[in-house]
Each structure stands twice: as structure tokens, then as C-alpha cells.
């Protein structure tokens, strides 16, 4: 793996995995791919990838196995399930998990895989969305051994403009989780800011301009707030996904023995939003909670 490009296995070709795999193919990494949805593989095969039909087949002979999956149970199945990639791991292989998972889950699954096969495990959650994935401008935070991370430095800089080695395996997920705490809570904070601005009689859309270069300025104020002020709830990050992330924060904080009352409150508000049937709305839809309704009785369909 010193000068020649490592042989890659890419498992999970969804919203993020698809463009990341395509980006690596364009840089001429040899790659085998697997996804439960064969349609997702077709486009990548055209771009030079080799299609496989199980995680174990995908990982066979690979130096680096890249995973990008939507849930912890999907990761569990891909690694340890029937025809799981575990069967193709060796002391020479490195697993890089780009998915967002709880640090606790990451540590447990990495330990199990490493104990059984002697492989390395790097948790490398990403931030930046599908367009940054396609452009190779993601932000990546990694946890893993110094040696494993160093060996893959050029692979990471090929897909990201910001690469941070946080510490041992699991710490990448800790950093990502804390980023989720901040972003998730800010959805709730910015939504109530928009509603308060409206209710107090100012043009809510002007706020980002008002606070530009001030202490309330920031990426979220300039990019997220305007969407809420425009009542644009087109899904980019599903509300239900934000809830899942925030619930993960609460669980990890409980395990770590620290209180998180602010993000805890945001978690409850997202739970309320999802209970009201808005799970498939963008996280900005949390604004809906603050719109209010005029008459409770009418909304109860006259049930008396």
C-alpha cells in the first residue's frame, strides 16, 4: 500500500456512499462494490467498479473495506451476518466505517471484528453532504491506530478537504456525535428564533444580515436559518434522522455519566415533531411546532 493505490471494497452506495465511491473511481482506485440495491451498483460498474453479490465477496482480496450504511443494524448484518465481510478480513485489512454510529456501538463492533480477524478498524464519520462527497471536499473525523490512519492518509485527502485524526477507534464517532449535538440543537434554536422574530413583528428573513460578523453569525445562521425563515421544509436532513442522532447523543452522555439538558430538550421537541407526523420533513420543519393553532376544538374534529 505504499505507492500503488490500495484495492478497495465499497459497501453501501446510498446518498453519501454513491458519490464517494464514484469520486474514488474517478481517481482510479481499483474497487469492488456491494449494495443490497443492485440498481445502485449499475452506475458505478460503468465507472469501472466490479459488482459483487455479498459483503464477503466484495471484501475478498481488498486492502481497505469502506462501509457507508444508514443504521447500526445494517452494519451489524454486513459485518457479522450471513456472508458477512468478516469472512474476508485478515491482519492485513483495514475497515473504514464512514457511517454515523454511536461511539459505544463503534467500539464494540470494532473490538469484535479485530479480536476475530486481527484487522484494523477506523471509524471515519463524514460531514458535508452529497455534493461535498462528489467534489471530494468532505470533512472527516477519524478514530483508529496511528499506523492505520497514516497508511490511508492519501485516500482520505482524496475525498476530504478536512481530515482530523481524533484518537483511538471510536473517537471519530464521538466527534461526529458532538457535532450532531450542536447542529441538531441549533435546528430547534433557530426555528424558535424565526418564530419569535415573526411574532415580534420584524422581517424574520433579515436576521442573518442583522447579525453578520456579530456573535450570532455562523454557518448555521447563514445557511440553515434562511431556509426556516422561508418556510422551506424540503428534505435534506430528515427530522427523524436528526431525532435518531440526538437520541444517540443522550444515550452516549448517559453512558459517559454527563448531563445534557439542552440537547435533551431538543431531543424531546424532535420527538414531538415526529409524533405529529412530520418525520419525513426536513429538520427545519421543527418550526411547525411553533406556528400554533387557532382553535383546539376544531382541530380535534369535534370529538367531545
Amino acid at each position, binding site marked *: 500500500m505504499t505507492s500503488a493505490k490500495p484495492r478497495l471494497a465499497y459497501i453501501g452506495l446510498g446518498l453519501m456512499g454513491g458519490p464517494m465511491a464514484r469520486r474514488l473511481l474517478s481517481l482510479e482506485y481499483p474497487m469492488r462494490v456491494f449494495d443490497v440495491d443492485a440498481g445502485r451498483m449499475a452506475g458505478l460498474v460503468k465507472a469501472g467498479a466490479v459488482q459483487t453479490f455479498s459483503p464477503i465477496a466484495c471484501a475478498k482480496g481488498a486492502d481497505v473495506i469502506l462501509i457507508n450504511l444508514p443504521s447500526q443494524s445494517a452494519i451489524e448484518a454486513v459485518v457479522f451476518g450471513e456472508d458477512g465481510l468478516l469472512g474476508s478480513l485478515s491482519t492485513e485489512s483495514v475497515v473504514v466505517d464512514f457511517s454515523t454510529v454511536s461511539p459505544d456501538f463503534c467500539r464494540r463492533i470494532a473490538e469484535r471484528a479485530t479480536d476475530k480477524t486481527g484487522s484494523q478498524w477506523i471509524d471515519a464519520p463524514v460531514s458535508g453532504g452529497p455534493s461535498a462527497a462528489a467534489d471530494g471536499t468532505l470533512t472527516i473525523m477519524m478514530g483508529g491506530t496511528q499506523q492505520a490512519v497514516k497508511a490511508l492518509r492519501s485516500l482520505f485527502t482524496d475525498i476530504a478537504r478536512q481530515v482530523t485524526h481524533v484518537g483511538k477507534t471510536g473517537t471519530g464517532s464521538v466527534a461526529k456525535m458532538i457535532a450532531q449535538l450542536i447542529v441538531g440543537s441549533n435546528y430547534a434554536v433557530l426555528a424558535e428564533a424565526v418564530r419569535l422574530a415573526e411574532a415580534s413583528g420584524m422581517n424574520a428573513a433579515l436576521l442573518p444580515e442583522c447579525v453578520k460578523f456579530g456573535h450570532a453569525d455562523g454557518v448555521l445562521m447563514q445557511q440553515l436559518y434562511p431556509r426556516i425563515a422561508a418556510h422551506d421544509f424540503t428534505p435534506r436532513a430528515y427530522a427523524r434522522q436528526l431525532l435518531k442522532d440526538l437520541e444517540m447523543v443522550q444515550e452516549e452522555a448517559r453512558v459517559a455519566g454527563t448531563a445534557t*439538558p439542552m440537547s435533551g430538550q431538543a431531543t424531546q421537541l424532535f420527538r414531538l415533531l415526529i409524533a405529529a407526523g412530520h418525520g419525513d420533513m426536513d429538520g427545519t420543519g421543527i418550526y411547525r411546532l411553533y406556528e400554533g393553532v387557532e382553535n383546539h376544538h376544531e382541530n380535534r374534529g369535534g370529538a367531545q
Partner: protein
Amino acid sequence: MSNDAYGFVGLGAMGFPMVSKAVEAGLSVFVFDTSSAALEAVVARGAKRVGSAAAVADAAETVFVSLPDASIVEAVALGETGIIHGSRIKHYIDLSTTGPTMARTVADAMTRKGISTLDAPVSGGPIGVRNGSLAVMASGSEATLEKAKAFLTTFATTFVYLGPEVGKAQVLKLANNLLTATNMVIVGEALAFAEKGGVAPEDLFRIINAGSGRSWVSEVAYPKHVVTRQYDQNFRTELMHKDVTLCMQEAERMGVPMWLGSNVRQFWQFAMTQGMASEDCSRIAALIEGWAGISEDIVETAA
């Protein structure tokens, strides 16, 4: 006009039955309210109507007020046609829940005019008045309390005197209301949780009320007004919000952190944005059940 005449301003959910009780007991009561319907109703029962708060205090030595909020108390007590301008008044008793700050403001002004004051918020609700079982907590002039007792005992049985320092009774009352406002919400969450877990409300309350989780809310309010789906606690959501807000404002002045209390206030504020301001406060249970995805059908069946 005899020395035994009493004055009363504010004939709302509490004031109306209070005056009715006093009149039924044979006391002479001069009354004023901005609602002529309420005035007519108590006059029909034997109360004597006058034209302003000041006129009430012209007619009686001992004057009670029972009003919805602090700013109204200030206007009625100290305003242009307020009680303070009355020629006969010697004792002023505020039965409202308006916070220690307003109680002190009014007491200071009254004292300068030679009027003794007592802040005497009550606990027990309109039902307590009708049953004659209200609890009165009082602070301020003990002489005023003694003067007021003949009137108050027509609907109250429990008296707790906290000493001459005006405002203490209001602090106590706000602490009590903080618990009621909190319990209303938290019992609602427990109910939704139990129902979604398949537990019948009747079973839930049987167990809660036999154990460490019980409160007036679980023993009386929910079984009577929520489990029956009558929602007839006769206390509006906006008043519950007012009480807990008042507590938060005083806590802010006093520098007392209210981690949970501030969230409880937010809850009631939120309930008001859901169109519930003038609904009975017990209806928040249905709001919480709705959020939990418990359908009206289940709720109606459970009733």
C-alpha cells in the same frame, strides 16, 4: 351601614361563590365587578351593588378582592377609583394569587393611608368554596385576619398565618401552584405512557394513589376530570400558565434556579399556542395523549 358590613371586588370563578356563601350566612356584603351579569347574579342572592371599587371601600370597613392578575389588583386597589380612596375602609384583604411583589406594593400604599393589609391567597378552587373547605394562607396584619375571619369561615376551614411580613403567603401560594402546574403535566405524561403501554387509566390511578407517586392531581383532578373525559376542572389553561409564570418571575427576582419549573412554564405556554388558552387545564391530558399517538377512539373507550 353597620361595622359588620363587608366589601368585595371581583366576582369571578372564586369571588362569586365566596360572596354567595357569605350572603347565605347572613352577612352584609357590598360588591363591585366590571361584569354586570356577575353583579346581578349576586345581588339576586342578597349582595348590595355599588358603582366602583372606591364605593365598596366607602361602604365597608373590611374589603376583600379576588382578581385574576397583578395588574388588575393594582388598578382595583390603587387606581383612580380604587379601594385606597374609600372613606370607610380599615382592612384590605387580597385573596388573589398575584405574587409577593404586588402584595408589597399595594401594602405599602395602603399602610401610608392607615389601612391594614393582609395577603391571603386561597387553595382549594371553586369546589372548595362551595364545600366550605377552602384553605387560606395569610401574611400581614393579624388584626385584619381576625376581622376577616367571620367572612372567611363561611367558605374556609383551614387558616395558616405566616406572620406580619406581607408577601409570604403569596410565596407559599406560588410554590403550591408550581407543584399543581407541574403535576398536571407530569401525570399527563405518565397517563399517556401507561395507556400506550396498554395499561387502563383506572388501574394506573389505583396504583399511583396507593403509592409514592400520588398528589392531589392524581387523586382528584385526573380521575375526576380526565379519566371521565369531562375536562371540567374549571380552571383555564391560561390561568395555570399565569400562576406558573408568576412563580418564575418571582424566582428570577429572588435568584432561585428553576430547572424544571421553567420547562413547566414553557409547556403551558406551548399548550396555549395549540389553541388551549381558554380551555379547561385538564384538557392538556388529551393534548399529550394526541402527541403519543393515542387515538380518540382508545381514549373514548377507556372513558
